[in-house]
Every structure is written in C-alpha cells, then in structure tokens.
C-alpha cells in the first residue's frame, strides 16, 4: 500500500524542522527589512574562493558603484552560508553591516537589533572586548609593535597561553588583564578608558543579557579595530552572534562601520530553548 509521503513520521518530523528553520530565517529577514536594512546579494564562490566572510563580499559589491559620502549610516545585510576551511563545513548565516555614520549612531542601531534578537528567549551572555583598549594596555606594558602584533595574532587564533606568556615576560602580573570580568564590576572598577558611547551601549543591553568584559576577546577578523562582541546562549556550544567595529581599505576606498553575523543554527537553538 502506498503511503502519502507526509504520513511517514520521520519525513514529517524532518519537514517540520525545515519549516521551523525557514520560518526563523524569514522572521530575521523581515525584521531587518522593517528596520530599513537593504539586502546585498553576495557570491558564495567569488574570487575563486568559497565565501568565508560576508563583510568583505558586501564591500566588494558596493565598491562597484560610484562613491559618494553617505548621508548617515548605510544599513545592509547579506544572507547565505559561510565556509570554514579548517573543518570544510558551511554554516548558514545572516550578516548585518552598518557602514559609515558616527559610532554613536551605529552603536544605537546595533543596540536595537541585539535587543530585538534577544527578546523573549532565555537570557544570553554578551562578551565584549575592545581592540583599542587592548592595544593601549599592551603598549603601556612595554611591548614592541612586533610583539603587539604577535599577541593580537595569538588571541585571534584563540591562543591565550602564548599571548599571556609574551605579556608576562615583560610585566609578570600583567596576564591578569586577560581575566573575564562581569560588566557590573568592570564599569565601577574603571580600569580602561572607554568612550562614553560604549558605556551607554552596554547599559542598554544589561536588562536582557548578562554582559562580560574580556580584553582577550579580539574577534575573528584582522580588520576589527574597536569594539568586538560575541553573544552566547546557555548550553549552546556555538556563538549566536559575533561582530565588531572595523576599518578596512578595499578597492582603493576606506570603509568603517560595525557589523555582526547571526549563526542561524545556533540562534534557532537559542530561540527554541533547545540545549
């Protein structure tokens, strides 16, 4: 006897899961469109390489148009999987970029997006670092430019051991600057001089998310130059969101802004409260 495919429980379960994933993706994209973000299609196999990062692909696309100083920030997003060469895996993502504008304007937009993304779910954990503060701290510890570059490279690769060792060679107790601190403690201790807009940015997020300060958090990409952040959900072993402020020169133009990537699979677990 022939069964209608939808009556096969395993298939129906699989179809339902796909339906949920697509519904979530549609919700994400609708939310961005409602907030005035423009979609920018990017090529997953451009420049004879698999796409590992949307930011460069977006800017590469925008560079094809004549340049005019934007009147306020340009809000764009791109969707699709990114490739991880070390694991040969593709991960579904939505990438959001706010290009140009003042830092305060851009941070306010990121605030709005993060609060929207965290709404109604289990309390997540935001980890924040700042490359400018880290650079100043390493400089104050007496590290040479080459040593600072080496420390940054170690941290970008997740290697805290060698970064701390290099720093401890100069200032034995200085490895303590890599300790993760709760934002509530950090803001009162005032160890690092942060621009005031960072304080107000983080203050607005604290009602919905735990916030930690970690100077060893430097982001994934070498073009980050200011604030970097990652959002994690309880019992989800992958980041939900990763991003930061950047400045990069591409195609003869200089671009600055702030952006982040939503990892759709992890974000779905977070929204559904699945551990």
């Amino acid at each position: 006897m022939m069964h209608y495919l939808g009556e096969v429980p395993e298939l129906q379960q699989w179809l339902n899961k796909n339906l949920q994933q697509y519904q979530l993706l549609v919700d994400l994209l609708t939310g961005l469109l409602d907030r005035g973000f423009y979609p920018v299609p990017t090529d997953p196999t451009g420049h004879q390489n698999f796409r590992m990062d949307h930011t460069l692909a977006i800017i590469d696309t925008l560079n094809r148009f004549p340049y005019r100083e934007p009147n306020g920030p340009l809000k764009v997003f791109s969707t699709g999987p990114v490739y991880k060469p070390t694991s040969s895996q593709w991960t579904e993502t939505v990438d959001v970029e706010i290009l140009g504008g003042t830092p305060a304007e851009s941070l306010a937009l990121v605030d709005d997006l993060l609060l929207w993304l965290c709404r109604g779910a289990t309390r997540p954990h935001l980890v924040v670092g700042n490359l400018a503060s880290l650079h100043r701290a390493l400089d104050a510890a007496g590290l040479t430019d080459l040593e600072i570059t080496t420390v940054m490279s170690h941290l970008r690769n997740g290697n805290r051991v060698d970064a701390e060792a290099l720093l401890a060679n100069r200032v034995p107790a200085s490895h303590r600057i890599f300790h993760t601190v709760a934002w509530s403690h950090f803001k009162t201790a005032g160890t690092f001089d942060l621009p005031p807009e960072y304080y107000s940015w983080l203050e607005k997020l604290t009602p919905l998310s735990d916030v930690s300060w970690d100077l060893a958090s430097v982001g994934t990409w070498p073009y980050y130059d200011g604030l970097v952040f990652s959002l994690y959900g309880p019992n989800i072993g992958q980041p939900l969101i990763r991003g930061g402020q950047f400045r990069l020169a591409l195609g003869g133009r200089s671009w600055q802004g702030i952006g982040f990537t939503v990892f759709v699979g992890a974000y779905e677990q977070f929204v559904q409260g699945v551990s």
Partner: protein
Amino acid sequence: MSELTVAIAKGRILDSFRVLWEGSVGHWPIPDTSRQLWFPPTGQSPGMLIARARDIATLVALGVADVGVVGLDVLREYPTPDVLEVADLEISQCRVVIAGTHTDWPEGPVRIATKYPRIADAFLKQHQIAGELVSLSGSLELAPVLGLASYIIDIVDTGRTLREHDLFEVSTIMASSARLIANPAHYYTKPEVQEFRDRMVCIRKGAPYANC
C-alpha cells in the same frame, strides 16, 4: 563542576593528567583495567570522555565537551580556530624534532618522513629546504633504516627510540606539552569551566586552590 565534561587524549597525556585531576577534582573515575571511553558526570566529579588526540579539539569546538586536554603538537598539526587555549598544563612534555642517520642539516632535495605534514611543511618553508614529505602514521624510525627517507620529523620524549634505531637529532622544531582547551561559548556561560582551569593551574603551580 559536576556538570562539566572533559575530553582527554588517550595515551601518555591521560596517564600524566591523573595527578592533576586527583589534586584538583578528586576521584579518578577510570578503573585501572577499564576500556570504557565515557564516564558521565557523577554529581561530585566532572564527566570524562577519552578520545584520539586529533579528535579532542573537534569535540570541544562542537560543544560535546566543555574542555579538553591535548598536546600542543596535535593542536598545531590540526588547527581548530573555534577553541580557546586557556592553560599550559606542563605535563607530557616532549619535542617535535627533525632527526636523521647523522646530525648534518638537510641540504638540497631531501625526503622526510613524518606524521606531522603541516608542521613539517612550515619548517621546510621557514628554512627554505627543498624537501619531499612522505606522510606516515607511525613507526617513523623505520623510514631511514629502510631507505624510504633520509630524515624524519617526529615527536621525541627521552630520545631512546631514536638511539635504538641509530638516529640523531638534527634540530628541535617545537617544544610541546599538554594544553587545556575550552569551548568559547561554555567558557563564558559556564562558570565551572573557568574554575576548572584555575584549579588545574593552581595544582600545576603546587598551590592550594583557595590561596592560588
């Protein structure tokens, strides 16, 4: 720390890690004759997962284990950017060396047998040595004896195996020891992960956790 899962590489690291575990966590969950690979958390003690060294970083990156213990040589040979290296445990110390039937530095086109093709390739490029790599998974000392390669790049502890095959160290490429790695998401969201790291570091320094 009862909800924590620790992935540990089989072999030498597992044996030497026992001292750190017993000093910081307490009861060692593995019976002496056991071949079991998974010991769930008990309420008093973290869970333990025993796996091949090259799989440890993957298990931690995927969040299957919160933390892992693996040799630096393996981390450099199979880099996994989605983990944090949070402590050098200073156990299972060894070196990755280039060795041959004599102590002469390799000149000209040479053939080198190794189970570390990534580390070996970086070494050859750094020193501008024209070398052909032969990838083997074990018993590297046999390669020069059988004429398969004039040099080997391998891990060395005391050097006894090299001596028994009439091989000589030419140069040390890197020093290695066991590193504690952590899943970044769990490192930030589970306070037990940072506590476990701090306990391990204190024991390594020979200091009680409370005063470390």
